[in-house]
Each structure stands twice: as C-alpha cells, then as structure tokens.
C-alpha cells in the first residue's frame, strides 16, 4: 500500500496548460548538451492550506519546497499545483541536513521545485526535477558569505550520499548567496496498485 502525502498523478493525463508548463517525459539539454528526461509522475497539491499543513518529513512542510514568484508559469503559481514525486527524496535529504544542524533550514523562493516553464531556468536545471534546493538561511545565519556556505557545504557532503553542491563564486554556474544542493537528474515513480493508478488518471 502506497503512503504519499498527496495524490500521485501521471503528468501525461493532465490538461494541456499543465502539460505545457510541466512537459512530463520530455527532454531538456544540460550544459554539455546531453538530453535529460523530465519527470512524468507528480504529486497534486490542491491548495495553499494543504501545502502549508502537510508534512513531507518531520521538519519540512510541502510549502517550503514549492515557493515560486512571478517568473513561474501561471498555472504553477495557482492551485492545484503539481510537483515531481522526487521532491520527497529531496525532503528526505534535507531532513538529514536539518537533523545534523539542529535548527531551521530555509529554502528560498524559486529555490525548490520550478517547472520547466519557469523563466529562471537555464539548461536542464535540477529544480525542474524537484531534486534541488537553494538554502539561503540556516537558523539565524544567512548564507551570503564564503565561510558560512563552505561550512554547510561540508555538512551536506558528509551527510547526503551523491549530493552535488554548486561551487561558491560570482561567475556563471557559481553562487555566493545560498547553498545549492541537488540529487541530480533523479526521477521517482512510486509503485502504485492498479486501483491507485486508475484513480490517478481521473
């Protein structure tokens, strides 16, 4: 029996405006030109209240990983909103980090899931897979200096197997005002029973 915080849906069954924004199963090219297949399976979050009140892990509520701004595709600024199921894996990784640092871990707006229709995306951003987080603050420490970012980079590398951290700096591909961590081009298609699959298509 499946245990998910939100209904799981097949992106190809969504109305056209959502498919245009989410591009389920389509490809994006990464910096090297390699094609990467976008997620096809999504969690459906019906309302802001549901996002606010639904925990993904012990310390992370859904809303913390779906904050976006005016640059996001309009359908993904409203509800229902769809996020790749891999956001659960991201939440689990962040939970490890949260337990180690022992204080609040703040993910920036536009710093969790962003749809491929989001204007800030370059190349095949892992934010489009729901596997990347931009942490701008840990407890009372804002991560806008090398020392703080380096410190928490070490923590993340030690705790999260396979994590990728964007290098510190001001050049293209670097960051100096948050800690970007991601789990790569990971997709997550939860196992579902026939009944659940049928329900997800409705």
């Amino acid at each position, binding site marked *: 029996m499946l245990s998910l915080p939100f209904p799981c849906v097949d992106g190809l069954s969504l109305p056209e405006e959502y498919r245009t924004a989410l591009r389920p199963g389509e490809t994006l090219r990464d910096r090297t030109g390699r094609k990467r297949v976008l997620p096809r399976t999504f969690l459906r979050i019906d309302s802001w209240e549901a996002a606010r009140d639904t925990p993904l892990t012990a310390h992370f509520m859904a809303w913390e990983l779906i904050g976006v701004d*005016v*640059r996001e595709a309009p359908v993904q600024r409203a509800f229902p909103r769809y996020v790749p199921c891999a956001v659960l894996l991201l939440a689990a990784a962040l939970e490890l980090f949260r337990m180690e640092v022992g204080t609040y871990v703040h993910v920036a*707006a536009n710093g969790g899931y962003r749809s491929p229709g989001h204007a800030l995306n370059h190349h095949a951003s892992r934010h489009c897979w729901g596997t990347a987080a931009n942490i701008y603050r840990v407890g009372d420490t804002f991560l806008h200096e090398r020392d703080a970012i380096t410190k928490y980079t070490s923590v993340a590398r030690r705790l999260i197997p396979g994590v990728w951290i964007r290098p510190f700096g001001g050049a293209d591909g670097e960051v100096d*005002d948050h800690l970007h961590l991601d789990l790569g081009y990971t997709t997550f298609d939860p196992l579902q029973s026939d009944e659940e699959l049928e329900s997800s298509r409705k």
Partner: protein
Amino acid sequence: MQEATLRETVLGLAEEAGANAVAVAIHDFEHRTSWRLNGDRWFHAASTIKVPVLLGVFDAIEEGLLDSRSRVHVRNRFFSAVDGRAYRVESSRDANSEVHAALGRTLRVSELAEHMIITSSNLATNLLLDVVGVDRIRATMDRLHLEGIDLRRGVEDEAAWEQGLNNRITADGLCRALRLIEERQAISPEASDAMLEILHRQKFRSGIPAGLPDDARVANKTGDMSTAAHDAGIVYLEDRQPYIVVVLTEWEADGNARQKVIARISRAVYDYVTAGA
C-alpha cells in the same frame, strides 16, 4: 516675483551653498505656465530614476505582464550592465531595511513599488528592474515621449559607475513625467492615481516640502548621492490648482546643507507661482 528675479534667486542660492550646478523646471496648472532654468541639462539621476521605474512597472501591469499582487523573490544579487559581474545592494547604504529583511522570501510587486518610492529602497528598485527589464522601461519612456530620462542600469552598479554608465535625467524630463501622472495620462487614469497615491506617502520631506507652508501637500521623490541632491514633486495648495517643481543640484562629494538649499529654492518657486494670489 518676476521670472528674472526667480532665476537670480535660484542661481544665488545655489552659488551661496557651493553647488556646482542647478536646474529647475516648473509647471503650474493654475496659470498653465512653465518655467525652466537649465531644464535640458543632464544630471546623474540618483534615486529620482525610481519615478521612471515606477512608470515602467505600472505599464507592465497595464499590459498584463505583471499583476500588482504578483510575488517577487527577494534576492540580493544583480548583474552589472557593463560586464555582467554579480553585485549586491549594500544594506548599510540602503535607506530601507524592510526589503532586506525579506531576503529569501517574496514580496508583492505593489509592496516593492511602495518601498522603492516611499523609503527609496535600492533593493526594491533593482528587483523591479529585474522583473520588468531596463529595455522594456526604456520603451515605456519612448512611448510616453519622455525625453530627458535615460535609464541604463540598476542602482549601485559600481562597475557601471566606474565606466561612466549612469542613469541620467533632466529637470524637464522629470517635470514631464510628473505632469503626465498629475494629468492622469501616465499609462492610464487608474495607474496614474495609484502612482500618485504612492508618491504622496513619501517619507523624505526635507527638500521641496520643507520650503512650503505647513498646509501644503506634496507628492515627491528625492534623489541623494555623494555628488547630487534632487527633489521632484507635485505641490497641492488650498484653493488653487497644483504645480510641479523639479530641483536638480550637483556638488563636490558630500557637500553640506544640500536639502536645505532645495527647500529654499522650493520656497522661492512657491513665492513665484503664488505671487499676486
């Protein structure tokens, strides 16, 4: 007061205070007259450039590209107009701390517009410039026939400053912009009303408003930096139509009493437009 007297008064006040240059533009709706001194001289815009940015934001809203309730990620990282280098707005040099306090989160377009004008937030200005785009705001200025306004870059872009790429304005240009707003012809009547409402809530009142009687209401925007001090406002007095006054001044770095001289010029303009009333 005669025109020649006003000219002598303004030049005398500026010279006495040690200003390197002064420009004044006036438009009086009561008498349907305009007056200018060095009206087409270019100055570094300082924070008066935020009035054109406000126009650009409301134009984007009018065109449906934005909604005043749209949320914008508050991130203090911008890219220089000359070399693309990342830079930040120093919170210690920003008159507004509320936008800095929202780092990582979002603020609405309307909130950023208010912070940009009312407390002259540099961070809010750059965030709005990022969302709307310098080129788009320049196109808005062209469409409104606002010559005398030259928006080039974000605020505190030091690399651009070092290469002489700055936002510039003339007294005439800024006067025309305020005139469009007062005449409800800036973007739309509703947009003009909304912009006017924001300008009326201005916190910085030591320039034009300080030279006026207590019952005067002023919708204004100041600009202050090491080598420039400006103020531009629409002045509302009892029993008469409003007038617009723009005062631009240039100084050696960190000259003293700059807002005081703007207040005194404002008083001279008040005496001029109300003479014989």
